[in-house]
């Protein structure tokens, strides 16, 4: 094996790739050749480091120097100063790692300090397109242990004992699911992976697939051994091209090494995997719909029972787990259920990955022990809200979840606490909202999403969500009544109790939770015809402050409908009957005289 003195790790996740990390890798290779040190320094493209806000990210080992927002032009300097002369380029380091005469390591900065990376253990550490690097990090050791030292029942017991619950949203105990499927008697069973990460604002599954695809393959083979299946499918979104590519590379490598295929590790166990691409239907994240989609049909859900563990894909017993759930499995088998269960709360064991986004300083992926409070995630890891704005709410669980208001910010994040306050874990999207976000508008945003994505099979979801959206539209248009709010509540509860699948049953949650915590905003829209966040256009009216207006006429010239009039050097006025509320006047005024 070739020995090198330094490693340059460049993030190749979707976030950093979008910020130009590919060009940075090429530039490193060119510059290393220029300085004739390309034999001593190795450049590796890794998976996501999680700190997408600071991308593209480059880490140089052995020093562990954390360069952030690196541009192509910076590369030559890093190569010459750091890699050739041994002088770290402090100017380019993430500023929080730089102290006087001291450079802090990655794990000491606020963003990483509180994190515990279990599912993301290899993301940003290894080259996802190189199976040897995975193996060097104890990869496929858990599969070996399961196949050679454990019976299928022991594997299931270990997973049960760990307390692992499904990370895709529902939180069903994984071991129990496996147990059901193992007890179904059939000549053919299937193991499926749900990588149809449809929740807007969640991208942890994508990061695992991009950064550590082998961990999912290993876990699926273990699941196959546990329940007695020899074929698996990974259903992944077509919107994730990098993830699909790396997954395929990983499957091919695993086959070549004999880790997938016939007679794995010479134990007589056969297992193989195929990728199936999604085609852009949110409902296919629902387990029965996903199976119908793999079968090549319209992805409509079907009633349960029979449960997939009895009758799933092609009517055969099937288990379906989410990417992040699988990523935990090798760790559980290697370190033992007890060790895994040390992290987390009484009923929610282990860690959870969250995609931190929206109005927050440190956007990115964070993995924290279950039970960490929202406050810790938002303020300590996330670095708070930008521009000195106030935290208003956090949305978890995507279109199936709800909003957590500021006074519940000390809620521990685990399955049961979130359900109790009317939200849910979901797949782990955590969108932070500040005072500029209108809660009625957010409820409408999610309803538009579910109306669009409703498959149309059952009436409560197809028609109920549509009616709900119409009522919301009335409210944001300023034509709603107080009775509409009550009617919405009734409708929500009806849909919840009568829809066929998880999509419909949870679709009213964004409305219910905002009604619960932000009812005053709904009432304000209806009674005062006012949107305090200034989002609902129909309820806005722009006005010019006569004291601040200098009569420069700029706004009058920019107004596309000629709604502003006034003489030069005199205060102008807006004719609200003509105004279309486009906001051009406000953004062009140099004196801050126009407000809404």
């Amino acid at each position: 094996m070739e020995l090198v003195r330094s490693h340059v790790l460049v993030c190749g996740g979707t976030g950093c790739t979008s910020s130009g990390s590919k060009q940075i890798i090429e530039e490193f290779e060119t510059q290393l050749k220029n300085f004739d040190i390309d034999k001593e320094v190795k450049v590796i493209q890794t998976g996501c480091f999680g700190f997408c806000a600071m991308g593209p990210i480059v880490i140089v080992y052995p020093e562990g120097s954390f360069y952030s927002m690196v541009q192509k032009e910076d590369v030559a300097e890093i190569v010459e100063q750091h890699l050739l002369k041994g002088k770290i380029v402090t100017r380019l380091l993430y500023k929080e790692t730089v102290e006087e005469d001291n450079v802090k390591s990655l794990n000491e900065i606020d963003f990483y300090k509180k994190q515990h990376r279990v599912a993301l253990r290899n993301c940003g550490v290894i080259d996802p397109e190189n199976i040897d690097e995975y193996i060097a990090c104890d990869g496929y050791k858990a599969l070996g242990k399961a196949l050679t030292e454990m019976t299928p029942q022991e594997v299931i017991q270990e997973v049960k004992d760990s307390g692992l619950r499904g990370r895709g949203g529902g939180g069903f105990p994984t071991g129990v699911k496996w147990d059901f499927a193992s007890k179904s008697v059939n000549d053919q069973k299937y193991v499926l992976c749900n990588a149809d990460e449809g929740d807007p604002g969640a991208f942890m599954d994508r990061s695992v697939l991009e950064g550590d695809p082998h961990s999912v393959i290993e876990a699926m083979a273990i699941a196959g051994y546990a329940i007695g299946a020899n074929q698996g499918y990974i259903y992944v979104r077509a919107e994730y091209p990098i993830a699909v590519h790396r997954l395929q590379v990983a499957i091919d490598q695993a086959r070549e090494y004999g880790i997938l295929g016939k007679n794995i590790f010479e134990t007589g166990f056969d297992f193989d995997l195929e990728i199936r691409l999604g085609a852009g239907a949110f409902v296919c994240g629902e387990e029965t719909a996903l199976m119908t989609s793999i079968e090549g049909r319209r992805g409509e859900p079907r009633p349960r029972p029979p449960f997939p563990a009895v009758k799933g894909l092609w009517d055969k017993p099937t288990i379906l787990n989410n990417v992040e759930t699988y990523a935990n499995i090798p760790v559980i088998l290697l370190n033992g259920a007890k060790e895994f269960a040390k992290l987390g709360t009484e009923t929610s064991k282990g860690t959870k990955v969250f995609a931190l986004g929206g109005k927050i300083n440190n956007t990115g992926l964070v993995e924290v022990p279950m039970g960490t409070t929202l406050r810790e995630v938002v303020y300590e890891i996330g670095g708070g809200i930008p521009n000195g704005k106030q935290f208003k709410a956090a949305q978890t669980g995507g279109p199936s979840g709800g909003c957590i208001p500021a006074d519940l910010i000390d809620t521990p994040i685990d399955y049961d606490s979130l359900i109790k306050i009317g939200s849910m874990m979901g797949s782990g999207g955590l969108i932070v909202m500040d005072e500029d976000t209108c809660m009625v508008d957010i409820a409408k945003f999610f309803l538009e999403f579910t109306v669009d994505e409703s498959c149309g099979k059952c009436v409560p979801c197809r028609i109920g969500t549509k009616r709900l959206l119409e009522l919301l539209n009335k409210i944001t248009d300023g034509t709603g009544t107080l009775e509409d709010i009550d009617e919405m509540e009734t409708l929500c509860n009806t849909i919840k109790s009568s829809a066929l699948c998880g999509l419909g049953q949870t679709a009213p949650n964004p409305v219910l939770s905002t009604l619960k915590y932000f009812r005053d905003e709904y009432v304000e829209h209806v009674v005062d015809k006012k949107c305090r966040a200034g989002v609902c256009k129909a309820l806005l009216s722009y006005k010019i402050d006569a004291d601040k207006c200098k009569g420069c006429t700029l706004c009058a010239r920019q107004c596309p409908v000629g709604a502003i009039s006034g003489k030069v050097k005199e205060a102008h006025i807006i004719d609200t009957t003509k105004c279309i509320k486009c906001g051009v006047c406000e953004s062009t005024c140099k004196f801050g005289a126009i407000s809404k």
Partner: protein
Amino acid sequence: MAEKKVPAFQGTKEQEAQLKEVIAKHKDSKGALIPVLHEAQEIYGYLPVEVQTMIAEGLGLSLADVYGVVTFYAQFSLYPKGQYRIAVCLGTACYVKGSGDILDKFKERLGIDVGECTEDGKFSLDATRCIGACGLAPVLTVNDDVYGRLTVDDVDGILEKYGF
């Protein structure tokens, strides 16, 4: 919904040969339809009824089955896309950071609505589901190029880059 005009089908012999190859490759595997549709859309750029008919015949399905699947999934398009496919992400993270305004600006500049294509066939506009680049929100893609951390003021520059 108003009926959109579908331009006359202009598939070539080469494309047809490619499609036949794809069908032959998947024909005997279970659940072949969706993978075939994906690859057919790669070849033709969209899935007009002529292509759907060839697929139905090749796989031994009815045209209704194929049409049912094509119209169910958002990824499959019955209409041709532009040379430059602009897709503005309307995931939650992008939405709360103002991607709705960016989409509106594109509509205004291009004079087309979501799902439409400019008359010269150069630009098409879509509102997409979360592409998972939430760290860079708001985000849009033009073909395979990704643009992040955008504001409404970036719209003109992006259009200019593609010769608008």
